[in-house]
Structures are given as structure tokens and as C-alpha cells.
């Protein structure tokens, strides 16, 4: 069977390289199974999780590990334990937010992180007023990051609340009586924390802003690439449509029209001929009519196969396979009805692939056509045991197939090589699958 000689393609392999900012090229996130394969969504999800993970690590290290170390080794002051308690609470909040983000609930997640951060920053400022600069910067981090994930109304509300929070923190720091335990703590601990934390948090905010801008730039360049590809593909589709019209014109002109013209000449002759001479002319005319009818039927079938309208792919593909000049094995279990554009594109791909296999595959080529319908997608795989070709020399037919599929939001993966056969996998969105009752019976006479 054909497929034994061929590698099985992975769906992701066909996707063009995604140029994300460097921080997002973490292999762990790329390969994570719990993120979807929609790249734009995945990109957003990854950024969000990287941010939350980093934020969690920051709080855990600076507000739990560091105070505990200081409590153990430097000074057994309850001040460190209070600091630690706030850190633990904030880390719990961040873990819950991570859980929400993994379930795509970004709005709730970011709101939770914001509230947690305000409360924690306020408490830390209350416990240790000299830490205000670091805490003020920390309070801004979630709302700076949140922008791509929330509606603008909520973003505005979070920004205003953050501003109010920073104001309250400032007032708290200015007017709160500094506790004795804080006063008693060695000044160098506080100084060291502020000297490290303020630039670090400032840098953190700037990195997030830069990261947002980089994401925007990446999206823009992706959009531009997509637009250029769309324009090229549209031009190719128009060219293909023109070519198709030209072919139709030639087929009509060279086929049916020629027979009808000859018929007209012969009927004219028969009308003017005497009875004996008219008989053979009418026989000839009758032959010509039959030829013309057959020609028109063949042409009409080539334009749009009637079975595809009435019975869908599961009925049209067997007929196509039976007419192919190479042996074709079919495995079409589970095929339903799909929108006409989807069915037409897949039928066209199959027809083109069968023609290619017959034309270029060489002797003893066999073809396997397999359809796999999943919940979200429909895969149609056409694999042959033919000669294959160098994938750099892709013909117009294969480009047309790719364009036609991309026009309906599908993808085409072509795997081949000299002596390896050819395997063409078309993947389309099957969420538009039609219920049986919704199928319009288009079968005509």
C-alpha cells in the first residue's frame, strides 16, 4: 500500500516559522501540549504565562525566600515574617491566576493579579514604608502587562485603581508610624533591598512595555506577510479562473460547437437532397448529435460533477476514482456533508492529484485516497506509489491546489521526493459541517 513507503506528516510541520520575540522562544512553551495550535492565540497565551511565571518567581524569591533567609541568618525579627506572610498570600493568588490563564480566562486572571498586587504592595508598604519606590513600581506591573488581554473599559478601570493605589501607598508610607521592629533592623538590609528592587522593577516594567511593542511589531509584520501572500494568492486564483475560462471556451469551441456546425451543414444538405440521398445524411446527422451530446455531458461533468452536488464527497469521490486511469483505493469512512466550497476544493484537489499520479507517476502506480473526519478538522490524504518529484519543482497544478485550499482557510501539505511517491494531505476546517437535513438536494435531471 502506498502509505507504507511514505512518512506521516505532522500538521505543525506545514506552518511557517513564527518569529516571536526572543523571550517566547522557550522550547518548553513551544512544545507544551496544553496550549492550542492556533498560533496567534498560542502566542498570547505563552506571553501571559511567561509573565505570570516570572511574576510568581519574583514574589517567591524576594518576598518568601529572601526574608526567610534573613530571618534565619541575619536577624530574628517578626518584620521578616510579616513580609513573608504577604509574599505567601500573593504567591497563592498568582498560582490561582496561572490556573485561570491556562483555561483561557485572561480577564479574570489579570484582574485577580492586579487586586492581589495592590493589596500586597499596600501591605508591604504598611509593614515597611521605606520600600515604597519598589512597591509603587511593582503595583504597576500587572496593569502594564494586561493591555492585550482585557477590554479597554476594564483596562482603564485597572489603570485608575492602580493610580489610586499608588497614591494610597504614598500616603501610607508618608504618614504611618514606622514600627520599632523596622527601625531596629539593620539599615543595610533595607538599603540593599531598595537598591536592588527599584532598578529591577523599573527594568521589569520597561521589559514588559518593550515586549508588548515587540509583539505588536511581530503582529504587524505577520499581517503584512499575510496580506502579501493573500494578494499573490488572489492573483493566482484570478489567473487560474481565467485559464479555466479559456479552457472552457476551447472545449466548447473544439468540441460540441464543431459537431453542431457540421450537423447544421449536413441537415441543410439533407433538406435540399432527394429522398435517397437524404437518408445517409440523416444517419450521419444522428451520429453527430450523439457525439455532441456526449461531448457536452463530459464537459459539464468536468465543470462541476453533478454527484458532488447531490451526494457530496462520499458519493462523488468513488466515481472520480472509478474514472481515473490508475488503480485507486478509497477509505472514506465518516465523511459527512460540508459547505459546497469545501467539498469542491477537496474534490478538485483529489481530481488534480489523481491526474498527476496518472500523468507523472509512471507504470504500476496505485493511489490511496483516505478521509479522516475529526471534530474540528477534515483531512483528505492522497498518496501514490509513483515516481515522486523534487519538491522544489512544484507545478502550477499543486500551486492551484494550495491556493484553492487556503481560500477556504485550509492547508495543503505535499510530501514527496524522487522515488518516494507523493503524499498530499489537505486539511480543512470541518466545523461548518452541515446537518443532513440542511443539505439542499441539488440533484437535477
Amino acid at each position: 500500500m502506498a502509505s507504507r513507503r511514505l512518512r506521516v506528516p505532522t500538521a505543525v510541520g506545514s506552518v511557517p516559522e513564527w518569529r516571536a520575540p526572543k523571550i517566547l522562544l522557550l522550547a518548553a512553551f513551544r512544545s507544551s501540549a496544553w496550549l492550542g495550535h492556533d498560533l496567534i492565540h498560542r502566542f498570547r497565551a505563552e506571553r501571559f504565562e511567561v509573565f505570570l511565571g516570572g511574576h510568581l518567581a519574583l514574589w517567591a524569591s524576594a518576598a518568601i525566600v529572601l526574608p526567610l533567609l534573613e530571618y534565619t541568618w541575619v536577624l530574628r525579627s517578626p518584620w521578616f515574617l510579616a513580609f513573608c506572610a504577604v509574599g505567601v498570600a500573593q504567591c497563592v493568588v498568582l498560582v490561582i491566576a496561572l490556573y485561570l490563564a491556562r483555561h483561557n480566562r485572561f480577564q479574570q486572571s489579570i484582574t485577580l493579579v492586579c487586586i492581589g498586587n495592590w493589596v500586597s504592595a499596600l501591605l508591604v508598604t504598611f509593614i515597611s514604608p521605606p520600600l515604597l519606590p519598589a512597591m509603587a513600581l511593582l503595583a504597576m506591573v500587572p496593569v502594564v502587562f494586561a493591555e492585550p488581554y482585557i477590554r479597554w473599559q476594564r483596562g482603564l478601570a485597572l489603570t485608575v485603581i492602580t493610580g489610586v493605589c499608588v497614591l494610597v501607598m504614598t500616603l501610607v508610607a508618608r504618614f504611618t508610624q514606622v514600627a520599632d521592629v523596622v527601625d531596629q533592623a539593620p539599615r543595610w538590609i533595607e538599603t540593599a533591598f531598595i537598591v536592588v528592587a527599584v532598578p529591577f522593577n523599573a527594568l521589569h516594567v520597561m521589559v514588559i512595555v518593550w515586549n508588548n511593542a515587540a509583539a505588536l511589531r511581530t503582529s504587524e509584520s505577520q499581517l503584512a506577510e499575510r496580506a502579501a501572500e493573500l494578494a499573490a494568492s488572489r492573483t493566482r486564483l484570478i489567473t487560474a479562473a481565467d485559464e479555466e475560462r479559456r479552457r472552457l471556451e476551447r472545449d466548447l469551441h473544439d468540441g460540441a460547437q464543431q459537431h453542431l456546425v457540421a450537423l447544421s451543414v449536413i441537415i441543410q444538405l439533407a433538406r435540399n437532397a432527394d429522398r435517397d440521398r437524404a437518408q445517409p445524411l440523416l444517419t450521419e446527422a444522428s451520429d453527430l448529435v450523439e457525439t455532441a451530446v456526449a461531448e457536452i455531458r463530459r464537459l459539464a461533468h468536468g465543470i462541476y460533477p453533478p454527484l458532488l452536488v447531490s451526494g457530496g464527497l462520499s458519493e462523488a469521490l468513488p466515481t472520480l476514482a472509478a474514472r481515473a486511469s490508475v488503480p485507486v483505493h478509497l477509505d472514506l469512512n465518516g465523511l459527512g456533508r460540508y459547505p459546497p466550497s469545501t467539498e469542491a476544493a477537496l474534490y478538485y484537489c483529489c481530481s488534480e492529484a489523481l491526474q498527476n499520479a496518472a500523468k507523472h507517476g509512471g507504470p504500476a502506480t496505485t493511489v490511496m485516497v483516505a478521509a479522516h473526519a475529526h471534530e474540528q478538522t477534515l483531512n483528505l490524504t492522497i498518496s501514490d506509489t509513483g515516481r515522486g518529484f523534487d519538491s522544489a519543482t512544484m507545478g502550477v497544478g499543486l500551486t492551484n491546489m494550495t491556493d484553492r485550499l487556503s481560500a477556504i482557510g485550509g492547508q495543503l501539505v505535499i510530501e514527496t521526493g524522487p522515488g518516494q511517491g507523493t503524499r498530499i494531505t489537505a486539511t480543512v476546517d470541518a466545523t461548518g459541517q452541515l446537518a443532513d437535513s440542511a443539505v439542499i438536494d441539488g440533484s437535477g435531471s
Partner: protein
Amino acid sequence: MIEKGGVYTIVRGTSARHDGTVAEEFVRVWVVDDQASFRRATAATLDAMDDFVMAGECETGESAVELIRDGDADIVLMDIHMPGMGGIEAARQIHAAQPDLMVVLMSTYDLEDISADAAECGASAYLHKEHLSPDLLSRIWRAGG
């Protein structure tokens, strides 16, 4: 170009003169067309005429240029749209080699859809294929004289 019941006279046959004595000998017609059905229709038309006979037939412009020798035919019915050289170029070459031979271009298109080269290739007339009839062939032959 003057329309005369389906015949479009492209060039008044100044060079393609013949003696016009159709009653004394057969007018030999050579058909060049890649469509077998139309060659059959032409054969049937000539069969219905007493003074016209089929001199030969071929499917391409190239074979027409090669096969039609001096004195083989009196009229060449030349389809315009054929694979390869095409009828207009074939007509030009045949006319250059045998200026006395009458070449009639044919197709199923209207004259407006035919390339302007058709008027300058030396053909005597343009014939819409569906108008082919014994009467029209005779008229074309007489008009050429």
C-alpha cells in the same frame, strides 16, 4: 470586406484568377481541418455537388503546406484554428507558393473575432463554417473569377 450571405470577401482575387469554365471540368476542393466531423460535412457537401470534387484532406496547416502541390487543387478550405501553425500562416505560405490557388479561410467564429492577419494572408474569402453549402461554394468559386 463585403458580406454576401455568409461569405466575407477579404481580397478580390486578382491573383487567384481561374478560367471559370466550371462546366467543363471538376473544381477540386482540398479541406484542411483538425475536426473530423467538419471534414465529413464538407465531403457530404461536395458529394451533393455535380461539378465539385474532394481533392484531398488533412488535419494541420503544416501537412497542408507540405501536401498541396501545384495543380493538386483549385480551392483550399482552410480552418483557422488548428493546433500548430494554424490556418492563417498556412494560407500565407500556400498563397506565396501558389498564387493562383484560391484559399478560403473558415472557422466557427464571427469575422470580428478573427485576427486581422486573416485579411492579409492572401486568402480570397472568409467562410463561416455553419454556412457551408453547395450554393455558397459555387458562389465563392464564381466570385474568385
